[in-house]
């Protein structure tokens, strides 16, 4: 029974990993840019949720969309002010740009919020739910379900709507898209916004069951890297599958080897993936 609980818990957190990783893989596939600060975006989403609750009494139904909107704006801003200027330049500039952003965001958060962990109250989203004998944490269940829906929604947005196909067109062939009257700059900014929103809302969801501190970005960034690599360059469905898998593996590792080693296993798995199947499950070659 305990094992089943662990598995379900892992799948649920994996769904949240899938959500923010799909945002990362979207911009990677589109612009060949990796946002090293992506984990910090999630962290900021967590804090947005916390402050919205603490200052304005907003519940998840309020602070989750709020986090999405705030991080959407941040994503667009980062693209317009920084990324778009370094995208076509030397690799050093590209990597330094978002890496510098990582430092700025993480340590500004340390300075502003201190290193102390804060939490949202346990009873914000129910307690535990009994699903056929398995005890599942209610906030985790809610987070996981919403995350799956949103990730699927992101995929549908990209593949079934007009604006989504415009984004994909720019990702596929910038020149051709321009010839069709699509403005690549606008689409890329939008993609960064979506990426930020996915991270923000994931953070808000995580905040309902996980302690919040400026340090969380560190491991979340690497989890995002592992997930997008396993999922495959630029593939949102790949990120979905990979995210759930990574969540599961992480949960099982914590169960069998202890919480310290959950990170070790996942990071070690990253190296193994790079050696064995770097193009991931569904990546474009």
């Amino acid at each position: 029974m305990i094992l089943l609980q662990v598995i379900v818990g892992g799948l649920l957190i994996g769904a949240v990993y899938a959500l923010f990783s799909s945002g990362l893989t979207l911009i990677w596939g589109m612009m060949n840019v990796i946002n090293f600060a992506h984990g910090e975006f999630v962290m900021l989403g967590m804090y947005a949720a916390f402050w919205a609750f603490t200052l304005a009494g907003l519940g998840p139904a309020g602070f989750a969309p709020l986090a999405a909107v705030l991080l959407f704006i941040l994503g667009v801003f980062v693209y317009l002010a920084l990324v778009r200027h370094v995208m076509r330049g030397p690799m050093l500039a590209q990597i330094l740009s978002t890496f510098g952003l990582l430092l700025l965001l993480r340590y500004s958060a340390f300075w502003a919020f201190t290193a102390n962990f804060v939490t949202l109250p346990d009873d914000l989203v129910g307690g535990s739910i009994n699903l056929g004998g398995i005890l599942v944490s209610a906030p985790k269940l809610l987070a996981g379900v919403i995350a799956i829906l949103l990730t699927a929604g992101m995929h549908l947005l990209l593949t079934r709507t007009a604006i989504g196909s415009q984004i994909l067109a720019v990702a596929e062939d910038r020149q051709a898209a321009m010839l069709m009257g699509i403005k690549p700059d606008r689409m890329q900014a939008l993609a960064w916004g979506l990426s930020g929103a996915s991270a923000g809302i994931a953070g808000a969801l995580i905040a309902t069951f996980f302690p919040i501190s400026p340090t969380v970005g560190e491991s979340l960034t690497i989890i995002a890297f592992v997930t997008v690599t396993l999922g495959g360059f630029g593939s949102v469905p790949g990120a979905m599958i990979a995210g759930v898998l990574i969540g599961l593996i992480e949960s099982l590792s914590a169960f069998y080897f202890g919480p310290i080693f959950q990170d070790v296993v996942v990071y070690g798995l990253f190296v193994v993936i790079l050696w064995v199947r770097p193009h991931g499950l569904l990546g474009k070659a």
Partner: protein
Amino acid sequence: MPRKPIIGWLALAAVLIVFPLVFTGAYYEQLAAFVILSAISASAWNLVGGYAGQVSVGHAVFFGVGAYMPLLFYKLWEASPLLGFPAGIVVSVLIAIVIGVPTFRLSGHYFSMATIAVAELIRILVSDWDFLGGAIGLMGPATPRGWWDLVYRSSVPYYYIFLAVLAVLLYITHRMERSRFGYYLRAIRAGERAARSLGVPVSRYKLYALMLSAGFTSLAGSLYAVKFGFVDPGSALGILVSVQMVVMAALGGAGRLLGPLLGAVILVPLQTTTNTFFGGAGTGLAFILYGGIIMLLSRFEPGGLLELWERFQARREARTARGRALLGAGEDHAA
């Protein structure tokens, strides 16, 4: 590459050699030693990050391995920490191979992502392994049993040891710049596809650059361990170590011989000052500052200060040349 006149080199060497004899006192001596040590790690990073253009943001792993080895040898076998130096280099180079072989045949992002992941991986392992001191770390010999323990009360002997190592590293880098290895690395940085078409074995050379870089970074870590006599996961394997190397090399001028030294000379005193003024919060402030500097560099001057200087010089020369040309034409007309 424009050749600097030999007098410039002699002047620089003279300043560096004489510095601690002029600026005496524990504070300056310690600061100077730390500047040179930072210049060594930043120059080592520069080999792979600057010259070859492969941006590692997890170089702390090599520094940390190099830092732990000497003190581990001391702890386990009461051996001289010096024996840990080559061990650190070997392990670091092996880690470099594990990271580099799979990622160098892929696009550049994979390598950078892998460096950050592996650095964290090793840090977590070391933090939780009591054998390596866990979160508390390891200590070296408190009093020297002989010259081989490299324990000195003053920072001055360390300063000169570090300076000698830096000189060797910079000399090797200089020779590399003018060799096929150096040209190939710069070609890889400038355009991998074109480099391949000219016969450059791209993946292999990136790996060589990383291995060389890892070895020297490990050496820097080992030197750090014997000077401070103490290592722990935060000080040897933390992200600050990686960031320092990157920002110093990039600020001074990545891919240039003296860039990292210039960056170290500017940033180490700056970081020490903020630490002194702001106490514990100082480290956090340093990060914010570094983050800002790195972002500004990436946006406006990825080539760093030396590149800025070079462009400024070129513009001045162009202006004087134009001026001379105009004057010359004017005189002809007058006559």
